[in-house]
């Protein structure tokens, strides 16, 4: 899959990301696995480990996971369960699971049979005033756990260094994000999401360099603007290798100009804004980066998501929104109706697409997306440059 995409990419520098994705995960004693963008990578790095975000949506693994969990479980849960049967997974010294949704909470119990699992409680509140201290306390407990469990110091200075590294990564990502939104067709959605997925396990410094390289190559390359309607992709994460949605969007001649998913934007867009360089201040800043600004539908923050969508649409002059619901994921599914209502008032066209990892419904999806394109075309050139 990675090979295929790599050959299709017009940019040579994207090879780094595809190669990283194609590589077999190494059984490494120095890695700590985690799920969701709510787990503070900086703490893991400061502890001397290599953070690996293991979030996966892989139909093969999902089928394998079905034997472990229910068939009706969400594809992400099933994929993780399938992944957990790998040797690589079992060799990890620790896996961190946040209590974001019910599926993850149950998974933490399920996986602890074979692997050491740290359950990171993040609560359900999303309000800074009420929850910031709670989040920071949970992060502190996590830090203390790592210190005790592995007998390491994970000093404040190390944490600061890690924050600087991830901030530089954020800087590169924001550059990439803005560049793509402002230069239609310059970097394909495949390259973009591959880069985002690769950031899950790449070292932040290397990844940052590679993104800058990708941008420089793209800037030097003549861009052929396709003139396709430009969309914002929101909703469930697009994770390698489940790029089905990107494929059908491309086939329907629609361009994903920007996204708000937790696999790309949610993982990389927000910086750690350090106010106080005390340990307490750092932990609070991390909590605000990961949980405070999160768009994860496990928190009551739908208004914020609607704001983000409207802001992106007007800032980058996009034509519409595709809201992707991974079938069987309740939280994304249930907020569709309210979101549609809010966006209707804001006159932002929204198409909700509910699908799973299997390939059967491709034809049907393309038909629906083509209808969307026609509708957007009719709306006139309002957003066109």
């Amino acid at each position, binding site marked *: 899959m990675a090979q295929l995409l790599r050959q299709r990419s017009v940019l040579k520098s994207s090879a780094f990301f595809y190669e990283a994705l194609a590589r077999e995960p190494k059984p490494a004693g120095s890695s700590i696995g985690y799920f969701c963008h709510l787990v503070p990578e900086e703490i893991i790095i400061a502890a001397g480990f290599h953070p690996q975000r293991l979030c996966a949506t892989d139909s093969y693994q999902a089928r394998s996971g079905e034997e472990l969990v229910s068939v009706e479980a969400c594809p992400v849960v099933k994929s993780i369960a399938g992944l957990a049967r790998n040797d690589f997974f079992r060799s990890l010294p620790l896996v961190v699971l946040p209590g974001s949704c019910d599926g993850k909470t149950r998974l933490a119990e399920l996986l602890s049979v074979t692997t050491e699992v740290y359950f990171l409680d993040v609560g359900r509140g*999303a*309000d*800074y*005033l009420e929850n*910031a*201290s709670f989040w920071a306390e949970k992060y502190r407990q996590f830090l203390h756990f790592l210190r005790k469990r592995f007998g390491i110091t994970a000093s*404040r200075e190390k944490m600061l260094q890690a924050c600087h590294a991830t*901030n530089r990564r954020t*800087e590169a990502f*924001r550059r990439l994000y803005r560049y793509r939104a402002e230069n239609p067709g310059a970097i394909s959605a495949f390259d973009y999401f591959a880069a985002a997925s690769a950031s899950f396990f790449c070292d932040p410094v290397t990844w940052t360099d590679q993104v800058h390289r990708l941008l420089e190559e793209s800037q030097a390359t003549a861009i052929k603007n396709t003139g396709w309607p430009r969309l914002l992709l929101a909703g469930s994460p697009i994770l390698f290798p489940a790029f089905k949605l990107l494929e059908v969007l491309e086939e329907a001649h629609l361009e994903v100009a920007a996204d708000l998913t937790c696999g790309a934007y949610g993982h990389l867009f*927000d*910086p750690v*804004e350090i*106010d*106080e*360089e*005390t*340990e*307490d*201040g750092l932990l*609070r*800043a991390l909590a*605000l*980066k990961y949980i*405070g*600004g999160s*768009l994860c539908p496990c928190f009551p*923050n739908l*208004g*914020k998501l609607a*704001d*983000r969508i*409207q*802001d992106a649409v007007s800032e980058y002059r996009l034509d519409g929104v595709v809201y992707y619901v991974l079938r069987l994921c309740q939280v994304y599914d249930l907020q569709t109706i309210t979101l549609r209502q809010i966006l209707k008032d804001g006159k932002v066209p929204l198409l909700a697409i509910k699908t799973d990892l299997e390939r059967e419904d491709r034809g049907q999806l393309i038909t629906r997306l083509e209808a969307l394109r026609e509708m957007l075309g009719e709306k006139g050139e309002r957003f066109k440059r």
Partner: protein
Amino acid sequence: MKRISAARRSVQVISLILLIYGGYLFKGKQEETGNSSLLPRLKAPAGAMSTTKFQPGQILWPSGDTPVLESYPPSLVCRFNPKGGMFKACIVHFLSENLTWQTSFKYLLPHLSLFFLLCFLLGRMWCGWVCPIGTVGDFLTWLRRKMNVPARRFPSGFRITLRGFSYGLLSLSLSISAFIGFPRYARFQCYWFLPYCQVCPARLLCPLFGLIKPNWKDFSTGITIVFTLLAWVVLGLFLAAFYWGRRVWCHLCPVGLVNSWFNRGAGMELHKKAIKCTKCGYCAEACPMGLTEMYQASSDTVFNQPGCIMCWRCVENCPRDNCLTVKFFGRKIVASKWR
């Protein structure tokens, strides 16, 4: 250090040097008789406090030097500066003194107008960028950070309580000042003159900058003992508040209170564009005054809370470009921008 903080620190240090050491820097201008300012020089009426005031050992101590400029800017510039300092005194001193002296309003008007004008232009920026006592406090905060001691955060109710106390403090000292101005009660002047200055931490701190010993104590009579002890307690509270609580003291400061009346409607404004906000809370986290309103605002707002000292830490910490903007009479000065 980030851009805005760096600018603010520089302004703070320059102001501190000017306001406290101004007396040394512009020494040539000082003459006991001449008026160095365009504004009228306010003096005690003949015969006032002729009794025991300003005897050695008294808590209040006139430096004997005149300031470079005879005016009262909106920040805590203390009259107890070495060599008289740059300006005369703070607004609370100004009001108290002249209430006691029963100075005619026509002499006060130029001073008040200048004060109002400066407040109207910059609001409480005077607290956040100029006040030398605030700068000393920020230094304590910096010290705490270096020592890795976590900041104390206070609930918003505490903030409101402090503001209440501040009103109490200001009205009490002004009423006492007015009261002792009447000839019948003039005999109290020797003890109750400038009641707020008696306990103000600046009175003890400012002379120290010139390596001059402030009047630490006066145990001669009951009232002076009370004032001495109170001054010590207040100084302790002041240091503790700045060390642990960032700018929590500034909610109590009566000078800040007077400035805060002009915050709303001041030329300097803080705007929030709600649609850009991700509710991350970084702004509230960074606010040294512990304000949370700009985090909470869910519609476009001009955010000039009375408590805001316009330090713009919220602006520089907001990770969303153009979410928070500072405007001066509608002209954009600076906006939140991440890198």
